[in-house]
């Protein structure tokens, strides 16, 4: 008999806070700099160095805490997490173990119309480690090259409760978290640059069972796709092991993107013994209500509020409003475009349709693409005043996306003005009718389809530039006279 299983997932998400300088020293945090060019005696762990906390890191951590509906601790502090690895020059990572800055938060997710609240256990500040580079792979080389630019970049680690029940829910949670952090303006949250990184704790249990199964931690999840695929693979692996009567062990596994499998890295017996203890170099942090309130006042409009506004003020459907508020860049684009062209639903249709199709096709982000809100607004005005048809607009839009030229410019350059003048259309129709006497007969004998043929011919003759409404009108007049 086959048992029905339930997948249980909790996520640990590391977010790079976008400060100008590192958490404990004044070195730059710019991405992609020359190796070891943003390193000083503090972040490279020289003897006698003294770390001093960047105030902005605390402010961003409070802001993030507010964005995830967490309690901000009135008193928190830093601890040392001890382990040896070449990417960690101090041989300890400064983190918050005993008293984290944020506790007891939550995010609401929506998977296929079902809303669910995911609890967040804690969020704590810590420093990032350096980067190891290998010629070939770590297996084939005999040494590591160490770049300490990333050492000391501020991170916020956000730990969820095991409230997620599927790969889809895990993805929805990570997307929601990313969106909240983008709106709060505390991180670039770019998965491909590693400014948001995710580990997943995955277990399975027979449906209805209250106890959690043996937990496996999966590392190296560098994309939303990897997160989903790894959870699905791992849950299936665990279910099959249980059904086959094989014992599961608590362990850390890594996601192998190429083979689409998880592989064991270390078991609980080999697990690290971090010997956390308070860092005496860093005095504790007190956060009073006044500080929290002053940061709350700097919080921009968050996605849930923005969604309500779009539905209330513009009457957009929930679906449209949810998609537009996925990122602050989308929302900004929408708001700027609607300010210039107030038909909100049309703006939303173009954003969700053509724009999002072209962005996906070209793997671009809305904030970096050629199309600016005022360019879309200008094009919509050209449709509205009859200069171009909706069909022509699609090719104008593609050209705008490719070249960054304005709609007016493209229309002029390609002679794309819509033909609405009835006399001009009448001449074209006259010619087509004369060339196709048989079809006119068909029409007279009651074949409505014959009219469609003429419309098609007119469009062909005008390269799609004829105004469809005007063509219909002139054609009806014409055929009724014949």
């Amino acid at each position, binding site marked *: 008999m086959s048992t029905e299983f339930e997948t249980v997932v909790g996520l640990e998400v590391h977010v790079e806070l976008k*400060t*100008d*300088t590192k958490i404990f020293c*004044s*070195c*730059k945090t710019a991405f992609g700099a*020359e*190796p*070891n*060019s*943003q*390193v*000083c*005696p503090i972040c*490279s762990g*020289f003897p006698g160095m003294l770390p*001093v*906390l*960047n*105030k*902005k*890191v*605390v402010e961003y951590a409070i802001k993030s805490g507010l964005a995830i509906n967490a309690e901000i601790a009135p008193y928190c*502090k830093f601890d040392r997490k*001890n382990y*040896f*690895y*070449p990417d960690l020059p101090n041989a300890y990572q400064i983190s918050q173990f005993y*008293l984290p800055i944020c506790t007891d938060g939550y995010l609401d997710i929506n998977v296929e119309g079902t809303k669910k609240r995911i609890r967040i256990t804690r969020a704590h500040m810590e420093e990032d480690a350096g980067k190891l*580079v*290998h010629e070939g792979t*770590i297996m084939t*080389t*005999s*040494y*590591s*090259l*160490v*770049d*300490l630019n990333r050492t000391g970049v501020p991170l916020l680690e956000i730990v969820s409760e095991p409230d997620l029940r599927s790969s889809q829910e895990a993805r929805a949670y990570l997307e929601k978290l990313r969106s909240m952090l983008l709106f709060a303006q505390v991180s670039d949250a770019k998965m491909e640059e590693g400014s948001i990184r995710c580990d997943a704790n995955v277990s399975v249990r027979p449906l209805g069972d209250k106890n959690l199964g043996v937990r496996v931690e999966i590392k190296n999840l560098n994309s939303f796709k990897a997160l989903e695929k790894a959870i699905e693979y791992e849950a299936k692996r665990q279910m099959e092991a249980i059904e086959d009567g094989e014992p599961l062990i608590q362990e850390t596994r890594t996601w192998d993107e190429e083979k689409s499998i998880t592989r064991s890295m270390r078991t609980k017996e080999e697990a690290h*013994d971090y*010997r956390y203890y*308070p860092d*005496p170099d*860093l*005095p*504790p*942090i*007190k956060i009073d209500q006044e500080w929290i309130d002053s940061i709350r006042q700097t919080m921009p409009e968050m996605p849930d509020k923005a969604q309500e506004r779009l539905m209330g003020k513009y009457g957009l459907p929930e679906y449209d409003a949810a998609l537009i508020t996925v990122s602050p860049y989308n929302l900004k684009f929408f708001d700027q475009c609607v300010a210039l062209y107030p038909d909100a639903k049309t703006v939303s249709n173009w954003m969700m349709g053509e724009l999002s199709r072209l962005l996906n096709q070209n793997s671009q982000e809305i904030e970096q693409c050629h199309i600016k809100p005022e360019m879309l607004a200008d094009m919509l005005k050209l449709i509205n005043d009859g200069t171009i048809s909706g069909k022509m607009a699609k090719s104008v839009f593609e050209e705008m996306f490719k070249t960054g030229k304005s709609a007016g410019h493209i229309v002029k350059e390609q002679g794309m003005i819509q033909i609405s003048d009835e006399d001009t259309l009448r001449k074209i129709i006259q010619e087509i009718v004369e060339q196709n006497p048989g079809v006119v007969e068909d029409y007279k004998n009651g074949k409505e389809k014959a009219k469609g043929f003429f419309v098609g011919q007119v469009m062909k003759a005008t390269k799609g530039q004829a105004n469809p409404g005007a063509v219909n009108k002139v054609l009806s007049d014409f055929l009724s006279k014949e």
Partner: protein
Amino acid sequence: MVISLQEVEHIAMLARINITEEEKKEFAGQLSAVLQYAEKLNEINTEDVDPLYHILPIYNVFREDEIIESPDRNELFANAPVFQDGYFKVPKIL
């Protein structure tokens, strides 16, 4: 509290140092003595005393988020035995 020989081995492993059988016994004795000394604190009643997280009565020591140019990396490399193409070069650790 007495530290066993197994615990000494575990601590040595975490610290990545090799120690002899002789040293194991020596360190077990010394570490036990240190812990026993600290155990005296258990004799004091601390029921109404808040835990102490830092020895100085200071908090919120911050710096502003302002960049100071990092030193030339060659100065850092002056302290490294091996470097290559702008990187520190170390034996790989799995």
